[in-house]
């Protein structure tokens, strides 16, 4: 059929002469661990070397070890459920490590590597899944909100927080983590609209792990997810989410823009969910094994190991100490998780309101009376 030339399948105003190739994710490390030059992004990670590289490697290794341990604890009945982040270590560790302590992070439930980098004790991440609390930590101790289970809701919270930073005249940045599935929620789109209109210093970090439970990303988007933000007036970057260096570079570009008054940036980190959606999921019902294998070859840690090897950084001692750190973290985590105390029955009434609430106090009194009654009675 005839279509008008002035019809748009692009949002125009491109700063790139080669938008056609822009769908190729930014990559600094090949799956083989070969560092490729990037005139545009190299400068953003030129300081990342030596011990820093080993620290990144250790973070990713510890997190994977912890993640597997949590899965094991679930199998053993110590956790009700667990959402593994297997395969997404680079996207999460890379982006989280370049944040400042005074930045504030709003995530979904799978961002446990982000929480680790922010300093959340590992066992705290499992409180929710063990059923001892509705969320695991005090957001203000680590400047990271506890996970939003309602898909997409946190993107608006991040945008609002960023609006607060603007009003306070600080250059702190709010970062919203969410998945590919989340991009279909109205809230995520409204967040981009508010962020654009108010030029809010927020980074939208989308981990496109190719799946929303059993639905492939194609159900949510027929074009790269990174294509959406520009139409709202928010520049976007599509980055190889299994390339920790590229993720760090892209995140720094976004943070720098936000701090310097340039507003929001949308990052699509292209990665893969190597595990099940949660421990109660069964990917064999919907996942293509070939695809799984392809992505296994792009493993973010393996890739980084190869890179460190080539740099000669991965000495036996280095390997050993990283392994020791991971084993130790997992061991301490397991013990601490199992030791998490159960909440007191009457705590069910706590913190529903910040101020006294007549209706609730009466209900609490009656339940307290009931508890002592059933203890006392011989029914």
């Amino acid at each position, binding site marked *: 059929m005839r279509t008008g030339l002035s019809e748009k399948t692009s949002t125009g105003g491109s700063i790139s002469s080669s938008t056609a190739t822009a769908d190729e994710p930014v990559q600094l490390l090949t799956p083989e661990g070969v560092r490729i030059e990037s005139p545009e992004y190299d400068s953003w990670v030129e300081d990342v070397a030596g011990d820093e590289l080993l620290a990144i490697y250790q973070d990713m290794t510890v997190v994977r070890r912890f993640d597997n341990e949590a899965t094991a604890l679930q199998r053993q009945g110590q956790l009700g459920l667990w959402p593994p982040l297997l395969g997404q270590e680079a996207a999460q560790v890379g982006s989280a490590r370049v944040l400042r302590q005074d930045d504030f992070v709003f995530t979904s439930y799978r961002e446990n590597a982000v929480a680790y980098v922010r300093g959340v004790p590992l066992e705290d991440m499992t409180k929710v899944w063990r059923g001892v609390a509705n*969320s695991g930590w005090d957001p203000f101790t680590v400047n990271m909100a506890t996970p939003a289970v309602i898909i997409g809701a946190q993107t608006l919270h991040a945008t609002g927080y960023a609006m607060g930073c603007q009003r306070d005249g600080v250059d702190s940045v709010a970062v919203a983590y969410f998945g590919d599935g989340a991009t279909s929620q109205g809230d995520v789109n409204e967040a981009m609209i508010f962020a654009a209109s108010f030029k809010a210093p927020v980074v939208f970090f989308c981990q496109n792990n190719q799946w929303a439970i059993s639905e492939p990303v194609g159900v949510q988007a027929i074009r790269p997810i990174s294509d959406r933000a520009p139409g709202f007036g928010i520049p976007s970057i599509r980055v190889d989410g299994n390339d920790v260096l590229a993720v760090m570079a892209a995140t720094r570009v976004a943070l720098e823009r936000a701090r310097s008054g340039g507003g929001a940036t949308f990052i699509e980190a292209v990665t893969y969910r190597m595990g099940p959606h949660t421990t109660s999921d069964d990917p064999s019902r919907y996942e293509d094994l070939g695809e799984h294998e392809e992505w296994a070859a792009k493993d973010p840690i393996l890739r980084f190991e190869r890179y460190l090897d080539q740099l000669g950084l991965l000495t036996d001692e280095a390997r050993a100490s990283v392994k020791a750190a991971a084993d130790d973290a997992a061991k301490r985590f397991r013990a601490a998780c199992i030791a998490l105390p159960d909440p007191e029955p009457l705590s069910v009434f706590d913190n529903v309101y*910040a101020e006294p609430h007549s209706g609730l106090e009466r209900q609490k009194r009656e339940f307290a009376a009931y508890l002592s009654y059933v203890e006392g009675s011989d029914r």
Partner: protein
Amino acid sequence: MSELTLSKAIGAGLRRALADDDHVLLMGEDIGELGGVFRVTDGLKHEFGAERVVDTPLAESGIVGTAIGLAFRGYRAVCEIQFDGFIYPAFDQIVAQVAKLHARTQGAVRVPLTLRVPYGGAIGSVEHHSESPEAYFAHTAGLRVVSPSNPQDAYDMIRQAIASDDPVMYFEPKRRYWSKGEVDLEHIPMPLDKARVVREGTDVTLIAYGPLVATALDAAAAATDEGLSVEVIDLRSLAPIDFDTVEDSVNKTGRVVIVHEAAQFGGLGAEIAATITDRCFYRLEAPPQRVTGFNVPYPPAKLEEHFVPDLDRMLDAVDRVMGRENSLTGWVAR
């Protein structure tokens, strides 16, 4: 003291809150230059600037969601929902986030949001502009729900709502926006969660809130012609409800009529009747009667006079609890 309309009294309360606490800000659609479709925020943008009186994109979920983020940063956002019927797009953020964040984080996060919702009917408007959704929020643990019925309360309660560290749904009886009253801008208000006996009586307790308090007072006045002494309670707070005040009244009268505009089925009148029955069972002379909107979508303007409880329907219910001739016993020609 100065005489103000209810809408101007809210505006005065907002101005005072903005002046007293620089972490208070207003968000909503058309609240800036226009001053809101009801002019409640008239002049506030010019006085406090666009950073504190924020015209937002047209998205209620976005308004409430970003207000939550601002709360994480220590701000107290007052969100205006333009009309009652437009609050539903924000329902998820209100019910799943605003109401639960404090409990979810074991008290670490406070969400001192205030949501201003012009509500109720009898203003001759079209669909979605005359609803009474308060029961949805009163049933939602974690929220406080209030509704003023007069300018003084409107002024006091909006300030208390904003000052509260809990999220407060502040339902504005839009039909009474233009009713005037003396407002003391300096006195110490009564607690936000207490009800007020606005007229003393001995035969029947008539419980109302928001837009119907005025109608209830008219009904009580009219009842005197029939030799009836009707006590009128203005609930003010819908969650929690001050049942101690209600209980005292019912223990005195033994008869209860509850009125609201929202549909009867599952409305607040049910909770009030059920709790009164539980607490005053042996004192009740008749089953509590509810005079409410029907269990139908809000009707077109030409029918709203039938839908919104009026003086006559309230008196008919009073006759029912008094065991007098009424619409259900049928009319006996004299």
